[in-house]
């Protein structure tokens, strides 16, 4: 009887652990929602492009822990761009939230990054303007105002490391060319929940 109980326990445990691992894996590798970014630099925006340089804008949620990985990858890109790109970090401030809520650890991290301009995005209007739905969403526009890249620069939620999005951005800022212009975004949702319209995963935050 005891052996049976132990055997059943082991089986249940193995199943539970496998389920859990799969859940972790699924969570980490499920991208957030995305929207279409304007192909040409929009006119009415807080972000002011620098003449003669490409402009990189990252939209982040100030309380999203996964965004630390996106900022880390941004730092990697900037370290390799040697000033070839003007970088902006736009921090979400939803309606009704205080400035302190926005000035989080993530804000501080971005503020301390060299050659990065941090601006507050009241009620997410800037994000909506550039079609950003998920924290860490990054867009790159050429000095001429043409969209070069839109998407995420991490492989999974909160994971630092090699990934296609970062490599494409790096290639753009270094060579002006890339093998693609988009990548999945992994992070918290920038906007309050609303019915899914594009088939994105429910659990993407």
């Amino acid at each position, binding site marked *: 009887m005891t052996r049976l109980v132990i055997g059943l326990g082991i089986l249940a*445990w193995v199943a539970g652990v496998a389920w859990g691992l799969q859940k972790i*894996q699924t969570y980490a590798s499920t991208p957030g929602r995305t929207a279409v970014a304007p192909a040409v630099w929009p006119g009415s925006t807080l972000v002011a492009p620098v003449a003669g340089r490409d402009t990189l804008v990252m939209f982040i949620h100030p309380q999203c822990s996964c965004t630390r990985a996106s900022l880390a990858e941004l730092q990697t890109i900037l370290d390799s761009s040697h000033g070839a790109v003007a970088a902006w970090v736009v921090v979400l401030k*939803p309606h009704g939230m205080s400035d302190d809520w926005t000035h989080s650890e993530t804000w501080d991290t971005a503020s301390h990054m060299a050659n990065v301009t941090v601006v507050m995005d009241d009620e997410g209007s800037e994000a909506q303007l550039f079609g950003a739905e998920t924290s860490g969403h990054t867009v790159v526009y050429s000095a001429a105002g043409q969209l070069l890249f839109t998407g995420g620069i991490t492989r999974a939620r909160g994971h630092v490391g090699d990934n296609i999005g970062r490599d494409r951005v790096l290639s753009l800022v270094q060579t002006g060319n890339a093998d693609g212009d988009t990548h999945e975004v992994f992070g*918290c*949702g920038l906007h309050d*929940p609303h019915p899914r319209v594009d088939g994105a995963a429910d659990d993407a*935050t």
Partner: protein
Amino acid sequence: MKRFVRDDQTLRQVAARADEIYARESQVQHSSTDRAFLWLLLAQWAFAIVLAAVVSPFAWEGKTRSIHLHMQIAVFFGGLLNALPIALILMRPGWIGTRITVGIAQMLWSGVLIHLTGGRIETHFHVFGSLAFLAFYRDWRVLIPATVTVAADHYLRSYFWPESVFGVLQPEWWRVLEHVGWVAFEDVVLVLACVRETKLFRRLAEREATLEIAHSGVERQVEERTQQLESEVAERRAREDDLREARHAAEAASNAKTVFLANMSHEIRTPMNGVVGFTNLLLDTPLDAEQREHVQIIRQSGETLLNIINDILDFSKVEAGKLSVENRPFDLRAVAQQVVSLLSPQAVQKGLYIDIRVGDGFPEQFVADGGRVRQVLLNLVGNAIKFTLHGRVLIELDLVQASPGGKDVVRCMVSDTGIGIAHDKQSLLFQEFSQADASTTKLFGGTGLGLAISRRLIELMGGLLDFSSEPGVGSRFWFTLPVLPVTESMIDTIVLEDLASPNAAPGDAVVATLLETPARGPQAPPSPPHVLVAEDNVVNQRLVKRMLENLGYTVDMANDGAQAVTLAVAGQYDLIIMDCSMPEMDGYQATGEIRRIEQEGGLPHIPIVALTANALREDREKCLAVGMDGYLSKPVTQEQLRTVLAEFLSPQKALLTTPPSTRNAAPVVAEESGLAT
């Protein structure tokens, strides 16, 4: 171990016990490591929850938050990871399944941590640390499933999501092998350590088993030896009890023998008193030559019988250890003269010469028991005369060692020209009841006790008695004595003691009496001494009465102690002669009663002299203790009566007594000691 293990059976016992100890120690080790992992798993779980709460407590969508999946993973998945190993640790500690599960769970924790940190190289150390921790089990089998878990996790992740374990998008194909290789390297090290520790613990178990078995063997031996000792002690105690009982029985038998001898002596002396006494009286009457010879033979036979009785008494006292010596100054030369005088008639009768030679410097007096020395010398000279048919007997007195301020040593040697002693019989000479030749007894008489008693007496006085003899040539017997020289102060003390003593010599007693009781002497012309005799034996009554009347006394007779008390109180007696053993009231009780009446009534003290067949020294002491003034042992002669009674009568009355009748020379019967054997 070889010193203790001596056979196959013991070897098997040691091996079996070592297995038990090893299993027990392994179980302890496994259980304790299980408990350590229990705390580690709980700590990891708690750490994961705290970390998730700090780093990523919430997930956000705009301003809407929800519990972050990391937090849920930490709480629930961490709990799930821990659930089975902790349950097994609590329910089945030490079980191999438990520790294998623990190893797998620990490796899963490593995989999750590595995944969540994006394959940070630092997080990989959790794998190595966990494997090292698993080595605490000292069971290399635990490392295998743990390693397989790590390898599988890495392989699957490298296949599906390489960045989560390698940190790069496209790792080289051998990165998995590299990671697994390092783990395998650590595994090899840990397996070797486990095997070595296992062997070490095995040896320790064997050593402990050997010690236990050796210890149990020693304990068993100690227990057996203790039981043996207890048995021996009990046996020894039983033997001691037996010996004690045997000694008590022997002492009782000895006492019974002593009492028997004393009684026999008493019973024999009483009729012998009549035989010898009336023989002496008969010799004082007109007899023809033949009648006189017959009577003298009767008297000699009686005296010989008394000597035998005295020897037996002495011997019984020697055996009972009751023989004592009284050291007083005496002159051995005078004693030798007395002995010669005493035994001269026998020597003359056999045509022998007896001489005394005194060496230069021989002390005139020294301190020893003169009575005992006289007894020994009498025995030696008597024997010399007895066993010498012609020739001479020589007594030589020499000072063999002079020690100023200490004890001198004197020697007295008696040599004869007698028959000598055969060499093969000489060793029997000092044995009791033995003579050199059985035929000797027939020829010369004697009990064979004399020399044995003499040697005991001399040894009692600290001396030695020995002899040399040549058959047909003669014998030499000698004894040496350590003696104290006499000093003037000693003489003064002894004289005063003698004056105060009831045993003082007649002359001394007279002087003492005159000095102490001047009023006792009668003013009017003295009447004959009036004596009361308490005696139950009719023969002895008649004998004593006849002797006293011969001595000039007037005599009243009492048949027992009570009558003696009545007459003593009513009459005016100058002296009472008291037999000790009488019916109804014995002499001791009667004396005590008379003394009590005298004291209460303020009456004058009547001298009481014991006349008893109880011849032991303690009998005399007992008599004096109850209030008697003198002591005479049976058989008694008329001369002894005269001498002793004169001590206690007033000088005037003493002078009235008739001098002793003329009688044939005969050895004086000593009060206690016998003569030659």
